């Protein structure tokens, strides 16, 4: 066989590897049509059940917590014209959700290829755009369907203008928005602008979180330009459709069409190794999601911040305990974005409290709990690294319990700073008394224990399945998923009780001290027998 002439550009081969592969797959498929239909039925049933549950929970929240007024739990923590109206808060929340979705698409890469596609398809002298368009279209359809489905409960509860018809159209608009976000992510990826795009999206979410708890937000919301700005943002368009507008559907359709054309034109710009890297990130994220490995999912979607090398480790002799604490400090100082994220999410409860009609005691309590869970997970990042590589500290003259306690020091400091922001901001707004700040600071000690527990949790035993009625579930799956979040809840329980009831009694103080002490003690206590598998990046 003669060697190919290198300079021979010519035209792409007319061979269609997709059609070839599809035909071969059809020939070799072991599954029957009935089995495929059964799978589809199972998926649809699961989606319907999940939607029904989500709808019921949202409905309960709306009716039980927002509408009923005057009860202890549902009393408004703030009142007055300095609050943000719901008409502005909901579009702002949707804007942040859209920014988060776009960041997700940028991370996993909308345009991607598997290693098999890269070798067997992309190595052929064919038009790569045709080869890559199909997997990208499948991703677009999945993103669109997921966004539409997620919006169903929101649409059903948002007082739609024309009942079911508006709900359907609103979900259609949300699906279109999902497609627009996917295509925007693809265009950013194909233009290699991921870094500035991530920066811009992070800046947007940061600005919303910084401003939302302040009177400035309410002041801006009253101005006419705010309505105009929110109207311009496509993230609000599904809401407009719900309330009777039709033009956003046409606008979204035009954006999808224009975006799809632009993406197809640029599809062959990325080299195969970048497409495979995107595909691997998407594959890891999917596998982590499927196996319930929240930590693994976080590891893919929130990679380590770029290390700053100007912080150098100390060279003076020190105890093993101090060496470990300094090493953890170095990890955070070299990636200050992690610290920023922990502190920033402390503003979430204040932002919720500042929404008129939503800032009830229960919802602020839920926001505090969610915020503390996110902060504890972020604060456990250094400990997770040690847990994944136990040999690193095995050579130091320190007991396992001592090492675990050392790794809890930095999380404790960071979470106390988080508590100062989270509880201090709602105190400054007049939503709670100073006692909640004191209790919250004590709770932060317990949250450090929760962070440690999450970092060192044993992974689920996927090689040792135990039959459960509906399917196979790995041994220790539930306990593994809950290790960390359970202590977060326990550490926050007394302070949340004080906020929900609006009272502080001496026994709540004692309970907070006991809960925090227990969480720290138990969270830093090593397992009596070595865990068979330590999750690499677990939830704190």
């Amino acid at each position, binding site marked *: 066989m*003669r060697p190919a002439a290198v300079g021979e550009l010519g035209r792409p081969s007319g061979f269609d590897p997709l059609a070839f592969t599809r035909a071969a797959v059809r020939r070799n498929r072991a599954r029957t049509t009935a089995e495929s239909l059964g799978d589809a039925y199972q998926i649809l049933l699961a989606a319907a059940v999940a939607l029904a549950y989500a709808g019921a929970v949202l409905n309960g929240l709306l009716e039980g917590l927002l509408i009923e007024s005057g009860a202890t739990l549902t009393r408004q923590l703030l009142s007055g014209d300095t609050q943000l109206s719901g008409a502005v808060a909901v579009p702002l929340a949707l804007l942040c959700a859209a920014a988060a979705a776009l960041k997700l698409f940028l991370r996993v890469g909308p345009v991607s290829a598997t290693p098999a596609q890269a070798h067997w398809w992309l190595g052929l*002298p064919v038009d790569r755009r045709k080869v890559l368009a199909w997997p990208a279209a499948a991703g677009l359809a999945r993103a669109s369907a997921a966004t539409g489905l997620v919006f169903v409960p929101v649409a059903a509860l948002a007082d739609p203008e024309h009942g079911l018809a508006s709900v359907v159209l609103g979900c259609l608009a949300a699906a279109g928005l999902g497609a627009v976000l996917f295509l925007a992510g693809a265009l950013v990826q194909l233009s290699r602008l991921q870094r500035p795009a991530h920066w811009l999206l992070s800046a947007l979410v940061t600005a919303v979180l910084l401003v939302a708890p302040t009177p400035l937000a309410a002041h801006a919301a009253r101005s006419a330009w705010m309505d105009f700005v929110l109207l311009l943002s496509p993230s609000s368009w599904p809401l407009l459709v719900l309330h009777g507008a039709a033009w956003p559907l046409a606008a979204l359709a035009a954006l999808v069409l224009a975006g799809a054309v632009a993406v197809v034109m640029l599809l062959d710009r*990325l080299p195969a190794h970048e497409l495979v890297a995107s595909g691997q990130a998407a594959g890891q994220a999917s596998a982590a999601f499927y196996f319930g490995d929240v930590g693994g999912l976080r590891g893919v979607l929130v990679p380590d911040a770029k290390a700053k090398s100007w912080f150098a480790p100390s060279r003076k002799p020190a105890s093993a305990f101090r060496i470990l604490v300094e090493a953890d400090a170095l990890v955070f100082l070299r990636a200050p974005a992690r610290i920023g994220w922990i502190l920033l999410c402390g503003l979430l409860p204040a932002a919720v409290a500042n929404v008129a009609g939503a800032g009830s005691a229960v919802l602020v309590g839920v926001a505090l709990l969610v915020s503390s869970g996110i902060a504890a997970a972020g604060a456990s990042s250094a400990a997770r690294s040690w847990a994944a590589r136990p040999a690193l500290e095995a050579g130091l003259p320190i007991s396992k319990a001592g090492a675990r306690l050392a790794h809890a020091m930095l999380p404790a400091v960071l979470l106390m700073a988080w508590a100062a922001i989270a509880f201090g901001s709602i105190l400054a707004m007049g939503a709670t008394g100073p006692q909640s700040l004191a209790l919250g600071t004590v709770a932060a000690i317990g949250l450090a224990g929760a962070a440690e527990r999450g970092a060192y949790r044993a992974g689920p035993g996927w090689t040792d399945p135990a039959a459960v009625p509906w399917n196979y579930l790995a041994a220790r799956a539930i306990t593994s998923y809950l290790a960390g979040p359970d202590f977060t809840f326990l550490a926050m329980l007394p302070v949340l009780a004080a906020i929900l009831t609006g009272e502080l009694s001496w026994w709540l103080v004692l309970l907070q001290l006991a809960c925090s002490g227990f969480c720290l003690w138990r969270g830093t206590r090593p397992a009596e027998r070595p865990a068979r598998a330590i999750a690499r990046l677990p939830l704190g």
Partner: protein
Amino acid sequence: MPPSPTRSAPLLQSDALAAGYGGTAVCGSLTVRLDGGECLAFIGANGTGKSTLIRTLSGRQAPVAGSVRLNGSPVAEGSLAYRRAVAAVPDEDAFFPSLTAGEHLLMTARGHQVRDPDTAVGHELEFFALTERRHALPDELSSGQRRRLLLASAFIRPFSLMVLDEPEQRLDQGMRGRLAERIRERVDAGAAVLMATHDPGFLAAAADRCVLVGEETVELAPGQAAGMMSV
């Protein structure tokens, strides 16, 4: 003055090429020229950067510094000319789970417009001792059979440059010898081969030139390098 001998444009040319990650080179820089009819091998201990260098030279990874040119133009992995000219074997298994061994090869042969692709598939399956496994799915193949299938995918198509990263892996001695002979046949027919190897016998049998990769890159005679590796 007698006219100076002229050389045609090299098939592959690197100038002060630094390969690595995150802006940091993992090995010494490389300036090398590879023409058709030559087999250039990289040797070196584990972790010295052979695979990174091969990926960078073949345009599958961006260089930290320096340049690579294929037939006089900057190497562009996505271009049609590159895909027609370069046959590369991936480091790891990469198969469609629902395509048989024969169908994988048939797709490559048809995509590269090989005349009589069925015959070509039969020939490659026979050479790589996979005839009996023609209708087997990838999961039904052994590790060595999957490796041979990947190698067959490079030989079934026309190419000017073949890129092989440790092709001897997962092959028995007999197959290594036959593979070296096959490489020599293609090199003698005018193709160029770029490879990394840890096998001194394979190196001596297949390569014309050899570069020792480390903190510096040093060109050695294959026989000398094979002797060093055997010690």
